[in-house]
């Protein structure tokens, strides 16, 4: 499909709808808009418009739809699969200026936000008001709009679920400029197709989200984490299915290797409280009172002692949490800083298979003679696996990357897993998803896309295209 290239007339229209200084045409849009966090794909938008209202988004989309201008919505640009990169050029909508928390509804336990609110701002706001917004992805400076668009998961998914479970309602603008409110403040909804849930995770390909009603939960009074060192990664990972089977209800079960802690210590310039063992599990328990939480974590610690845990270290105060969790949040950046270039694999496998899958990546690393560090959400089966380029030549790197990805996605599929647990498909993972789903399922997705966006102007070339 050929798209319309932006002209001075188009730029003038964008300026008339918004404000001159909020339209960055051509060179004015800085390099930051050309890529996302992982930068696997680079492409310059022809113009960036910093939108401030649903009305502006609506008028811009209606205009773009008529003239066949590709439009890419973008939040903080912290994505990892190129979903927010303007691969066809065109117009980029920067939604970070729509950053207001509009309403806290204590009667319905909801908060209404604009899409540019940052996850860390929402988390702090909920906390201040005695609530918890459970989704807790590592990247706290992502926008809520971005989190919804990728159906982000995060560390509390084991107990609380993922972003989709907390989206009650959305205000969206369809590619033709129509504004629709999907869902609402209702708890239950059996009224027709779940369009709201279709938008969640659609990576900006079906509609532009301009407002969201999110569900909050009462803040648990007590939250305690356990850091459990193991002598080997195999022992640590083998303990995970046992913990799940024991019906303990941790909010998080994270795993990581000593190597990753050392990278984080370097990166943050701060020591981790324990860095002498080969592998670690980090679990969190929350609840209404200290006795209940202690009973829960004690049972799990006792179980893990039998399974080879060398210790169970208690993280129960703010300052202890501050010595551990920020480091966990920085793992991605820390690994990135340890190598010349990297790419990631965000597969999700059934929880019972996670140990097998990680062991498989260790064998693969040896076989391909490449470093493949990983960490992730052992409790929900979602792994973050990084293939590090280190000193490889460009040609070798491309070959190693392709082989590693092909092998890992194929192995995940054999185990009943899926291509992405929480980072999305975007641009970078399309072929792996298409290979797994097959032509019929991909065609069905294509028809859904066409129903929303018959002119294919919204984030073209992504997800199922």
């Amino acid at each position, binding site marked *: 499909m050929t798209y319309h290239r932006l002209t001075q007339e188009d730029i003038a229209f964008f300026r008339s709808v918004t*404000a001159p*200084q*909020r339209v960055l045409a051509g060179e004015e849009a800085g390099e930051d808009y050309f890529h996302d966090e992982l930068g696997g794909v680079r492409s310059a938008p022809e113009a960036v418009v910093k939108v401030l209202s649903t009305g502006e988004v609506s008028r811009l989309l209606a205009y773009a739809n008529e003239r066949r201008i590709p439009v890419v919505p973008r939040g903080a640009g912290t994505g990892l699969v190129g979903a927010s990169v303007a691969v066809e050029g065109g117009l980029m909508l920067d939604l970070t200026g729509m950053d207001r928390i509009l309403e806290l509804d204590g009667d319905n336990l909801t908060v209404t936000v604009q899409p540019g609110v940052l996850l860390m701002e929402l988390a702090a706001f909920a906390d201040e008001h005695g609530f918890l917004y459970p989704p807790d992805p590592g990247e706290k400076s992502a926008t809520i709009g971005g989190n919804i668009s990728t159906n982000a998961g995060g560390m509390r998914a084991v107990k609380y679920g993922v972003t989709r479970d907390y989206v009650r309602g959305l205000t969206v603008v369809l590619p033709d400029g129509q504004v629709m409110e999907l869902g609402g403040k209702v708890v239950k909804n059996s009224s027709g197709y779940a369009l709201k849930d279709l938008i969640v995770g659609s990576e900006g390909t079906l509609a532009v989200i301009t407002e969201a009603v999110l569900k909050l939960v009462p803040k648990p009074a007590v939250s305690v984490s*356990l*850091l459990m060192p193991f002598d080997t990664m195999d022992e640590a990972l083998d303990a995970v299915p046992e913990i799940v089977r024991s019906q303990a209800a941790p909010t998080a079960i994270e795993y990581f290797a000593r190597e990753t802690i050392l990278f984080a210590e370097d990166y943050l310039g*701060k*020591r*981790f*409280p*324990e860095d002498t063992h080969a592998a670690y599990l980090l679990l969190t328990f929350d609840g209404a009172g*200290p006795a209940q939480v202690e009973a829960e*974590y*004690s049972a799990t*610690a*006792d179980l893990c*002692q039998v399974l080879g845990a060398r*210790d*169970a*270290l*208690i*993280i*129960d*105060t*703010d*300052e*202890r949490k501050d*010595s551990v969790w920020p480091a966990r949040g920085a793992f991605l950046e820390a690994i990135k800083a340890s190598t010349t270039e990297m790419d990631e694999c965000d597969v999700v496998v059934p929880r019972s298979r996670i140990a097998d899958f990680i062991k498989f990546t260790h064998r693969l690393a040896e076989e391909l003679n490449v470093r493949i560090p990983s960490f992730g959400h052992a409790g929900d089966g979602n792994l973050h696996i990084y293939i590090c380029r280190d000193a490889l030549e460009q040609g070798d790197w491309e070959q190693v990357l392709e082989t590693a990805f092909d092998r890992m996605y194929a192995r995940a599929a054999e185990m009943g897993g899926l291509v992405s647990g929480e980072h999305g498909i975007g641009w970078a993972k399309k072929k792996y998803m298409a290979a797994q789903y097959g032509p019929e399922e991909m065609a069905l997705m294509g028809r859904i896309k066409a129903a929303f966006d018959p002119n294919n102007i919204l984030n073209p070339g992504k997800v199922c295209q």
Partner: protein
Amino acid sequence: MDIIVCVKQVPGTTQVDIDPDTGVMRRDSASTKLNPYDLFAIEAALALVRETGGSVRTLTMGPPQARAALLETVWMGADSGVLVSDRRLGGADVLATARALAQAARAMGRYDLILCGKQTTDGDTAQVGAELAELLGIPHAGNVLSVAPGEGFVDARVSLDDRDELQRLPLPCLVCVDKNINTPRLPSYFRKKALAADPVTVLTLDDFPDRDERRYGLSGSPTQVERTFSPERAEHRAMLSGDPEEAAGQLADLLLAGKFVREV
């Protein structure tokens, strides 16, 4: 090296509530923790002993429930704890507190080094450590960034804001460590579970070499607290909206009106 670390149990949250009528601190007894500043002293002590051998005992004064704080130090790696607890010691100011701790330290037998944190999060006076050293008649250093052991002495790196000073202190001595000089280790659930005997000894005034009641508690405190209150908090907030240029104009007007800036 045999080390005593002074610790205190403080409210679990940083939000300390003062009853405006009575001026008494509203302590939520369900939520307490080890004074965060003391964690650095405990870590420093455990690291020293790992190097030199010896023992780490922790010492606190407080109500019976302060035992929990001492147990936590043992889960972190201390060998044992001493709780000074006696109604006759209640209501003590910094001097009466230091007197009681000095008596307890004498009752605890031989030690080489006493380590304290910089201050507590509830009292914030940062005086007890220095007073304790004076009462024991031993040298002391404050704002210490690191402690290196030697034969019969320790070398303490002291922060004097604009420069650091290396001080050599003969043993026994007392050192107050600064915050953030290390990453304190975490308490171990396995250590907690493995404890066979009660590691906490309780001392009362009757165990002190000096049993003169008038020197302790409220009666031994030269400081009388007239009134305690939370400082009045005023929050004025203005939300500016519109384009960056409009908002900048509004901001400039506000700053001018408030006399924060002057037009030139």
